């Protein structure tokens, strides 16, 4: 049986561990993708995604159902990422970013572009382009990046984004416009080959 988010949340509140598992499995990929988009490191993305769900487990009783569950979850996700970033800034010698992907086996630091074409040249071009995009996204400020990632990866509407970031729709509009403009300028030289 397919339960809605709200039903699962209610069952979790009643202490049903199975509902919590279903909730995690429903959102784990999306949360991970967002976290990876913001922090840019696979190992850390795993750790922070788990931290997000640990917080969900701890604070689910605070969710009153006034908004959709996923906006609450995404808000939690963004908060976890931003506070991790802040902590990392204060730790010298531990600077990881999309621009400096880890060489660890577990984390090849590659984000490939989905393409049906399998020619080696195309794959190489795609990887290069993916690296360029990663670099460009990573160069955005934390707030612009998280707004952009939620819009592009999760396709949240401006209204939903405003609820996640607790700001006005106009602020979201302006953030996305600035983020896109900065990205466009950064990858402009590479855009000619893209149709």
């Amino acid at each position, binding site marked *: 049986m397919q339960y809605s988010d709200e039903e699962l949340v209610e069952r979790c509140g009643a202490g049903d561990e199975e509902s919590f598992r279903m909730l*995690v499995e429903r959102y784990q990929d999306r949360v991970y993708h967002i976290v990876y988009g913001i922090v840019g490191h696979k190992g850390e993305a795993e750790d922070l995604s788990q931290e997000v769900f640990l917080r969900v487990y701890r604070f689910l009783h605070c969710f009153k159902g006034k908004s959709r569950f996923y906006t609450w979850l995404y808000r939690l996700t963004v908060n976890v990422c931003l506070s991790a970033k802040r902590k990392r800034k204060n730790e010298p010698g531990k600077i990881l970013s999309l621009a400096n992907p880890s060489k660890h086996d577990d984390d090849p630091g590659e984000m*490939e572009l989905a393409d049906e074409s399998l020619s080696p040249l195309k794959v190489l071009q795609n990887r290069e382009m993916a690296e360029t995009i990663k670099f460009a996204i990573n160069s955005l400020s934390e707030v612009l990046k998280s707004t952009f990632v939620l819009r592009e990866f999760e396709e949240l509407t401006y209204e939903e984004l405003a609820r996640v970031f607790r700001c006005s729709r106009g602020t979201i509009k302006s953030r996305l416009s600035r983020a*896109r403009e900065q990205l*466009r300028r950064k990858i402009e030289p590479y855009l000619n080959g893209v149709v």
Partner: protein
Amino acid sequence: MSCKKWKKKLSSYLDNEVSYRERLKIEKHLKSCPACFNEFKQLERVHRLVQSIQPEKPRPGFYERLSERLSQEKLTLREKLVGWRYSWQLSFPRVGKIAVAISAVMLLSVSFYIWRSSISYEVNIKVFEEEYLRSQQMNSFVGELALPVFFEIK
């Protein structure tokens, strides 16, 4: 409107987050302004590229690893509770526990006594007046009779 202002609207136009009237205005401007049109096409390409990035997925067994962390957290909580009980046992041996219990009973008794004694007695003026007038009419002192009436326990 200057091109700078139009360009600011391109992002929300791309996301289809503009009103119908605004959409028409933007489209009209894009038809007449090659610079803005070119910029819009570039934004479209950026959007398409970002959209084509394959979503990252966590390694298999994500829930199992999370579950492990959760059980560790629960264990920590249990350890804290057990630790509290342990410290209670350590700091209060058997004789000490009896002393604590006696003190608690004494404290409760004293509190109850203080509470009872704080109950006030008030003079019922109306009843007193009636009795006084009646005694005046009878031209006699009826203090003994009036006393239990005008002191009323609240």
